């Protein structure tokens, strides 16, 4: 009996419970704000206003969300096969090389719509390659992927330091970044999309990578629930012994899954490099790989959950930056605490309120027992 307690209707399972978790997370975050002597209401106002107040702010929110969709999908895909890929950070970072090479090579004489597909390919290849090794080590040598992917994050950081210092930095430049790309390496903003809603993106780097993220979400859904490979991945994720019985080759699935996961994480690199800064800078990933873990957790590893979860984290990033800007006594670190609380309540403690909500729902929906009055024992 996997779920001994009553099965809940969909709107409770996927709507009410996450909402309650979120409200509690924000309530506790409010207490923290109160503790440093600031008004939680004011902070909440800046958070919401900073994320949605203007077209430009919405653009920033969705820009961050784009990044998190990719890293969230990456974690989710691995999760379905029972693998915990903590290496999204490193995979995205290394994938930057693929994007940068494509741009540096083609940006002067090709339009963006030619460079973009090449860059997507480059990002996927480099991301997949960086995930291949941990996958292969687990498949062949049994080295645990959680450990190896963490190690590969560190190796990626050193490697990128070297690459930017010695290889990709233009001669004579002082800063650790590639040269700025020409028009071919600059992705168009999604002004037209925003203007449908009567908004303007302003300076927000909200770009076509967002559409790629939506396409990738659909692709992941097809992969997991509609292909043979996805079927094999899920079988392995749920029951390795059943997978062996079915003749599913564990080593092969581990390696392929990790490569797909790495490729998805890698595509994240397109967003900041081609969509915002038009060059590859040191540390451009900025923890997005780790946020992906929280996004996948909250989104229950389903694209339909990952997209809203990624947007929520976009709100936290963009609105959080606004709070830090408007309320000087609340530092960036406080924002990280608030984000941590959301992860805590929506991810790790997601079942905390389930029993109480279950009872309440059963009582309200009139399915309660007739002898509720008889309180024995």
């Amino acid at each position, binding site marked *: *009996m*996997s779920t*001994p*307690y*009553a*099965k809940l209707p969909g709107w409770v399972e996927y709507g009410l419970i996450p909402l309650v978790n979120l409200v509690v997370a924000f309530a506790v975050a409010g207490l923290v704000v109160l503790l440093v002597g600031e008004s939680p209401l004011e902070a909440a106002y800046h958070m919401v206003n900073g994320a949605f107040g203007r077209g430009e702010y919405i653009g920033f929110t969705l820009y961050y969300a784009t990044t998190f969709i990719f890293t969230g999908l990456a974690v989710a895909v691995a999760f379905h096969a029972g693998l915990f890929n903590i290496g999204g950070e490193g995979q995205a970072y290394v994938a930057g090389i693929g994007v940068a090479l494509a741009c540096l090579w083609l940006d002067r004489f090709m339009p963006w719509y030619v460079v973009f597909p090449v860059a997507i390919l480059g990002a996927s290849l480099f991301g997949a390659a960086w995930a291949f090794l941990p996958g292969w080590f687990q498949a062949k040598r049994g080295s645990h992927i959680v450990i190896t992917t963490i190690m590969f994050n560190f190796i990626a950081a050193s490697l990128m330091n070297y690459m930017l210092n010695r290889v990709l930095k233009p001669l004579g430049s002082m800063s650790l970044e590639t040269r700025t790309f020409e028009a071919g390496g600059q992705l168009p903003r999604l002004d037209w999309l925003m203007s449908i809603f009567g908004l303007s993106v302003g300076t927000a780097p909200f770009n076509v990578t967002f559409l790629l993220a939506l396409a990738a979400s659909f692709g992941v859904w*097809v992969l997991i629930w*509609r*292909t*043979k490979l996805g*079927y*094999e991945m*899920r*079988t392995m994720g*749920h*029951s390795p*012994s*059943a997978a*062996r*019985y*079915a*003749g*599913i080759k564990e080593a092969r699935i581990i390696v392929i899954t990790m490569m797909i996961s790495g490729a998805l994480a890698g595509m994240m690199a397109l967003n900041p490099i081609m969509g915002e800064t038009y060059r590859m800078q040191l540390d451009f990933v900025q923890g997005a790989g780790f946020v992906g873990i929280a996004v996948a957790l909250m989104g229950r590893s389903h694209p339909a959950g990952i997209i809203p979860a990624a947007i929520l984290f976009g709100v936290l990033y963009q609105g959080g930056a606004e709070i830090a800007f408007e309320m000087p006594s609340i530092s960036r670190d406080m924002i990280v605490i608030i984000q941590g609380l959301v992860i805590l309540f929506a991810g790790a403690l997601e079942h905390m309120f389930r029993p109480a909500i279950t*009872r309440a729902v*059963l009582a309200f929906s009139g*399915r309660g*027992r*007739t*002898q*509720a009055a*008889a*309180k*024995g*024992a």
Partner: protein
Amino acid sequence: MDELAIELKGIDKSFGLVHANKDINLKVRKGTIHGIIGENGAGKSTLMSILYGFYQADRGEILVDGRAIDIRDPNTAITAGIGMVHQHFMLVENFTVLENVMLGAEESWILNAGISRARAELKRLEKEYALDVNPDAVIEELPVGLQQRVEILKALYRRADILILDEPTGVLTPAEADHLFRILEQLKAQGKTIILITHKLREIMAITDEVSVMRRGEMVATRETAKTSVEELAELMVGRRVLLRVEKGEAHPGEVKLSVKNLTVRDSRGVTMVDDVSFDLHAGEIVGIAGVAGNGQSELLEAISGIRRAVSGKVHLGGEAIDVTGHADPAELRWRGLAHVPEDRHHVGLVLKFEESENAILGYHDDPKYRKGFVLDIDAIRADAEANIQKYDIRPPNARLKTANFSGGNQQKIVLAREMERDPDVLIIGQPTRGVDVGAIEFIHKRIIEMRDQGKAVLLVSVELDEIRALSDRILVMFAGRVVGERKPDASEGDLGLLMAGVEGPKEAAE
């Protein structure tokens, strides 16, 4: 007349469209053993889960010792003196017996005082009910029979007066089952009330005082055990007459379909589980492997079907070698005509979190007919799944239901349908009727014999000696990894029993 320990009035429960319990009334007298029988999916486990607070009834009333009680969770049930031994044990594998018994009933934050008190209490219980288990043994090192005893101790430690056992003998050897029944008799003698769910009518006749029959969610009858018969009960359960013993004609063995030579298999710790086993399996015959559980039968099946690597030996399928010591591939063997119904349906034969239709293709998901371009053809998959559901009468007939939500016997039918409907040349089948009701046993046995009569080779492993004797054309007995004898199906139970216990029988081979 006597006092009632439990009275259920108008219990009703639905899971979505499945009406699992329909207006159930049940009276269980104090100090008796009350059997509950019924087809797979009749709603027995659901009813007991309601009594134990795992599920909440939609309607109805529960009276314990004459008092109405609102049982909202297992804790209320425990407080009311109800204990339950689940079909799948709920023990912490790497805790000791004592720790498991105390878990959740520690009484205080400081463990030490509680531990010595618990130890004393455990001693008393063991003496009183002949439930001897070493309190310091670690659970995972105990055989299932003893693990089950720990579950009973757990309930008694929580002062249960009413004990519910859901299919307790499914996993036990005959000797272990006998011992369990002695314990139950003892408990009854001490005034405890016992509710026993089982599919084995023999057990019902042997030990219960009264028996209630469920069918399709309804309570259809309650009988005094002394005044009923196996035949009547089977008929009440299924709603028609049931053949309790399969009829089968002569076997007409053909060519060798599967040949096993000097097969040796070790487990992960290096213990030899299958020791130099050789035999041939012909087309059109059923070879049964008898033996007490744990004597290498499981490992033998796993090695032949390519799941577990053998140390040495040769296996040929239809004349061609299977690379059992190297990279035998279960998927490839399926295409070569080997179907395998594994013993452990929960961990091996099914993915419980999948929809029924997804399990209906497990292992055959490579079949091109389930592919449409580069995606899976969900319609084709569901159509096949639904055909199997019809043909094997799997209930509820819903290919989209999560497999975990099917009752045990119906889960077994999902696996059988998948493996049998592929028209394999060789069918190897472990514990085909574990946890399956009499009506379904009849059906499954008929299908197995039909397969034989169509010229398939069937290798059958079962811990049910009756089943082995009823189906097999030849019986091999395994003991400590070796085949210690071969018998005709008409060999006496005593003769087979001696072989199974490792005592060489008087005659060597029956051939």
